[in-house]
Structure formats: C-alpha cells, structure tokens
C-alpha cells in the first residue's frame, strides 16, 4: 500500500442534517489532518448532500478516515479518489479596479488568454471569474497580482469521478 502522502478527494454522501459537518470535521481534527478544501452541495439524488473534501494524506490513513466517516449514522457512503480518478474544477473570483482595464492594456490580453469571464463591470471595479484546475487559477492570480487585486477568493474543489458511484443503487438496497 502507498505510504506516500498525496492529495485525495473524499466524497461523502449524506442525509441532509444539521451538525453533520461538525461531526465529520471532528474526525479530521482529532487526527490533526488539515482540510485543504471543502465543498458541500446537493448531489444527484434528491435530499442527499455531497461533501467534497480534499486532504493530503497517505492511502493507509485515508482508508481509516473513510471508515470513521462511514460510521456516522447519517452518512450514506464515503469514497476516496486520487486526482487521476476524478474530473475536477475550482473557481476563482478576482475584483479589480475598473480603471486598470483601460490603463493596462495587457490585462485585456490576460483575460482573453486565460479564458476568464467578466462577471460584472461598473465604474469602480470589475469582477473576473475563472474556473479550472488549481494551477490555472494560481497562474491567473500571479499575472493579475502585478497590477493589483482588490479582492480574491477561490472556491473549494468540486469533482465528479470517472468511475460510477452507484449511490442510487445503494440507497435502493437500503430501502429494501
């Protein structure tokens, strides 16, 4: 088994429940594992929420964590995948002074080349949105930071897996 640390996404399908985030994050806290990124959203199944958690861990330990997550009463199923096994996206938002758009012609090129999208423009500022891999967002950040960024934020990683999850089938077996 791989004993090297690497980035894994942990996907947790859960019943929608107040307090479950607390319960799940406590599992990481106890073992001093830093959560690199966290996203909670509805899943493909009605009433079922999906946590996407990114951690830097060994395979041995990620398996133990999966066991402890699945043990929680309201967790339906938890999976872990390395980055080769998923398709993922991260979104970044950049708020930049509007005057730069006209004063610094290079910025327009950056926007074009990076496939970033202008979300809104007004007199004071404009907002850029860029979705992609972590490195792409970072690259755009580096290019823009030269000119000054008023605000920057990056979303948690969201991912779908290459393999089939079969959550619906699993729920079907639970219902019977």
């Amino acid at each position: 088994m791989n004993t090297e640390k690497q980035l894994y996404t942990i996907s947790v399908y859960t019943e929608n429940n107040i307090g479950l985030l607390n319960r799940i994050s406590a599992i990481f806290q106890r073992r001093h594992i830093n959560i690199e990124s966290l996203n909670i959203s509805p899943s493909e199944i009605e009433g079922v929420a999906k946590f996407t958690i990114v951690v830097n861990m060994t395979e041995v330990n990620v398996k133990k964590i999966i066991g402890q997550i699945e043990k929680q009463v309201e967790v339906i199923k938890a999976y872990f995948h390395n980055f080769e096994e998923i398709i993922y996206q991260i979104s970044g938002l950049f708020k930049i002074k509007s005057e730069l758009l006209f004063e610094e012609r290079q910025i327009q090129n950056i926007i074009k080349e990076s496939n970033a999208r202008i979300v809104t423009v007004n007199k004071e500022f404009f907002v850029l949105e860029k979705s992609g891999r972590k490195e792409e967002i970072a690259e755009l950040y580096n290019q823009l930071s030269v000119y000054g960024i008023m605000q920057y934020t990056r979303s948690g990683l969201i991912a779908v897996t290459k393999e089939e999850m079969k959550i619906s089938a699993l729920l079907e077996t639970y219902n019977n």
Partner: protein
Amino acid sequence: METQTITNKKIISKVTERISGSEAIVRCLIAEDVKIIYGYPGGAIMPVYDELYKYQDKIHHVLARHEQGATHSAQGFARISGKVGVAIATSGPGATNLVTGIADAQIDSTPMVCITGQVASHLLGSDAFQETDIVGISTPVTKWNCQVTRAADIPAALAKAFYIAKSGRPGPVLVDITKDAQFEEFDFSYEKCSKIRSYVPIPKTVIGSLEAAAKLINAAKKPFIVWGQGIVLSQAEEQFKALVEKAGIPAAWTILGASALPTSHPLNVGMLGMHGNYAPNKLTNECDVLIAIGMRFDDRVTGKLDEYATQAKVIHFEIDPAEVDKNVKTDVAVLGDAKATLKAILPLIDENSHEEWHQQFKDLYEIEYEKVIKGDLYPTKEGLTMGEVIKEINIQSKGDAAIVTDVGQHQMIACRYAEFNKTKSNITSGGLGTMGFGLPAAIGAKMAAPEREVVSISGDGGYQMTIQELGTIFQQKAAVKIVVLNNDFLGMVRQWQQLFFEKRYASTEMVNPNFVAIAEGYYIKAKKVTKREELAEAVAEMMASKEAYFLEVCVEKEGNVFPMVPSGASVSDIRLE
C-alpha cells in the same frame, strides 16, 4: 360539535392524543420499556420532572447526587442488563456534567440515551441562563445526537435515539430538548424505529471470509484467540465457548471481555494487556494465527504496535468496519455480529486440542505464579495486599458476584484475580479509564439486577471522585457492597512515579478522611479492616448483609501491580517485577 358514531367501519389510522412535549418524552420512555432512569432536575427540564411525578408508578426516577453519577449509574444498568441505560439532566451545567459518562459509554460501546433540557428555542444562541451548546460539546463523544425544538419532533427523535443506542455497535446518544418544545402540545403517537436509511448497524459478512478464516484456523499450529466485549454485547457467549472448545484454542480477554467465558474454563488463559497475564502477552508474539473477536486492539492491549503479533496471520471478527485495520493489519476480516459469525464458522472448524501449544501457556503461568500471583494472593509479609481481598471476595461470593471496579491499581488487581462464573460480571471503565465510575455504576448494576450480588471495588482516590453517590445508595436502599482498598495513595500514578520518575511522588499521596464515619453519616453499615486476621470475617459479614455495606481495607501503601508491559514497549517485554 356533534359527535358522530361510526359503526361497522374500522378507521385505520394512527391513534393520536393531544399531550405536551414533556408528557410525550415520558410516554416515549414507557413505550421503550424503560422502567428506571437516572438524573437530576433543574430549570430547563422541569416540565419533564412534572410528568415523571405523574408517571412515577411506571418509571422510577433515581435522583443521583451529581449528573456524572447519573450517567455512570445508567452505564452500570446497561452493562449488567444489556438494555439501554437512560440519564436525564437539565441544560447548562447539568448537561456538561453528563459529558464524562457519555465519553466513557462511547469508548466502551455502552448503550445509553441521555436526555437534556435546553433553554427555550427563542433564546438559543443568546448566552441565556444555563444555556450551553451541549449538542456541539457532545458531538465527538456520542454515536448520535440531536436537538429538538418542536414537540412534534420528540417521538421520532427518541425512537431514533433508542434504536441507534442499542443497535449494531452500541453507544451513547443525546437528545437535547428545548423548554418550549416540552410545554408545547401536539398530537402524540409513537412508533419504534427499526431502520435508518443511511445507517447499517450490522455489516454484511463478506462472502468467503468465513471459509478463509476457517482455513487459517484449521491449518494453524499455534492459534490464539483474543476476545473483547463484542462477545458480551452480541450475547455470543455460548457460540464463543463452542468454538473455543471445538478448536481447542487458548483464549485470552480484554478487561471488557472478561467473564464472557468463565474464569475457571481450562482454555481461558487470562487477561491481555499492560497488567494482564504473562503467558497471553508473551505468546501473542509466538502464535501463528491470532483470532481477534469483538475487540479493537486498544493500545493498552497491544503495547508497541510495530512489535505486536507481526509473525501471525490475523483474523478479526468485528461488527464495526472502522475497527478493521485501524490498529492491526488484518489478513481476514469477518464482518458481522459475533453471535451470527461464530455460529456460522463452527461447522467449518476442525476439532483439535493443541495440547503442546496450550502447555506453553501453562508453563508461563507457573512462572507468573511463582513471581507474582503467589505473593499477591498468599502474602506472608506484613501489610494486606489488594489481591488477597479479591481472593476473599471470590471465596465468599463463590465467583457469582458482579464486580464493579473503578480505575487504577485495584481495578487491575480485581480484573486479574476476580473469579467469574457468569457473563456480564465485570463492570469497569476500560477505554476512558474514568476514576469515579465504580460507585455509581454499581448502583445502576444493582438496580438492574437486584437478584445479583454487586460488589463495588474502588481505590481511595476514585472513590472520592463520586463519593456523594452514597446518598443515592442510601435514598434508594440499593444493597451495594462497597469495598475501598485504601493505600492512602493514587496508587497507579504512584507506581509509575516509582518506576519511571525516580520516586518523585508528585501529588499522589492522599490524606484521607474517616471513610467509615462518612459511610455511617449516610446510615450505611461500615467497617474498617487493617489486619489480615480480620479480613475473612469482615468480608463474610459484608456479603451476608441484606443491605448496603461499606468495607474499608487498609492495604500496603506502596504495593505495585505486576506483570507490566511498560508504556510503549512490546508485549514480549512484559516485566514480572
């Protein structure tokens, strides 16, 4: 309104009644067949107490002297009966005082439902009087918890609570109920919970795992069974004994598994772990197949993991998939309820006796007997030993008593030397090591099983952590036999200070009160023994008593518990002195 009488027509619908949330709580408990609960009243839970007053012929509420005592009593109740223990408290400090007992129940897999009152829902989050986020606080130490703010949600929450507490690997749950939900009226009906979509209490046994396990066991030359509380929790004692006997495999226990197989059984080779027996610890590292059943490889059992049974193939019978491979890498995991899996594997197991291998255990026992046991049980030097007190209790109880221990030296000695004929006879705080557990747990055990002799054995330290529960014993007329093995020290810590901190006895010496006077202050018969020649008679008098009895035995001050696997050492490095 005109009343219509419908004849010849059955209306199929749930029968509902309009009652308050607080009455609903009590009615839910009755529906779950709860007859005794342990608790302490206070502002935010008062409506429930008002209902308990009305329903006192159905539910007996035991007033503890501290909420922690209530949880330990509920645990003792659960451990001896196999039923869910119930503890109830008010918000704020009442709720936080439950936390130690909850944590203890969580790590020792004890089914317990805790009900706490909470400030009215419009005050939540406002730092109201006696408001505390008990759901947040108890999250890491509960199997499940929730807060209820509407009366209508009470029945479903409690039904779920009882189901989760007792199913699968049992554990504590907490339901926090706001005061307005207790007052609110609603249409009550109760349906027991038997299924939660996302929750799999008993995992499916993987196809082929039983066969793979049987193959390893049948081929083994030196198989060794280590068992834990899983046998007791799944009531698999009979199936377990059948397996041990058919396969002729020496078997050793964790302290929570003790008594699942009688102490006198020829294949019971003793206790595992830090202060366990010499043979089972040593031979863990010589067996070729290690069969773990309903135990979780706690570090007090395994010692240094890197040097734990690395030569052996490991089979793990386990109900909780998260325990498999958590500490010890398993070759074959047999998931499922021990009763079912043991029953299923029995026909696949060849009869065997492993006499030579078993002889190795006997040989090592002889060494331990000469070096440790003889001196503990038949001391010739001055000063009473803890071991001879336990031996005397064995003689007087004929091994039929339930022994409830606290935490420390007396606990290890009691576990090592107590004789158990019956299952569910060793009630102790294993995983959490909660000093103060013993006395209140004994109250719960005695009330759950009044026909059994229940002997609480504590040290002078732990006894004083929950000594106020003597008041509960007195008020409830609970015929608990209370033994305090007094060495005027926090003995286990002192032992470590002696062995590993060059005898710097930092804050371990206890200047103790007159324990007999305290017991008598609670109108409990009491006696103190300081000499060997007084011991047998005093124990006999205690055991003969029909009511509660307190016996203080002054034991040697600096006695040590051996054998010992030093912290962080391998089980092979177990020390006899």
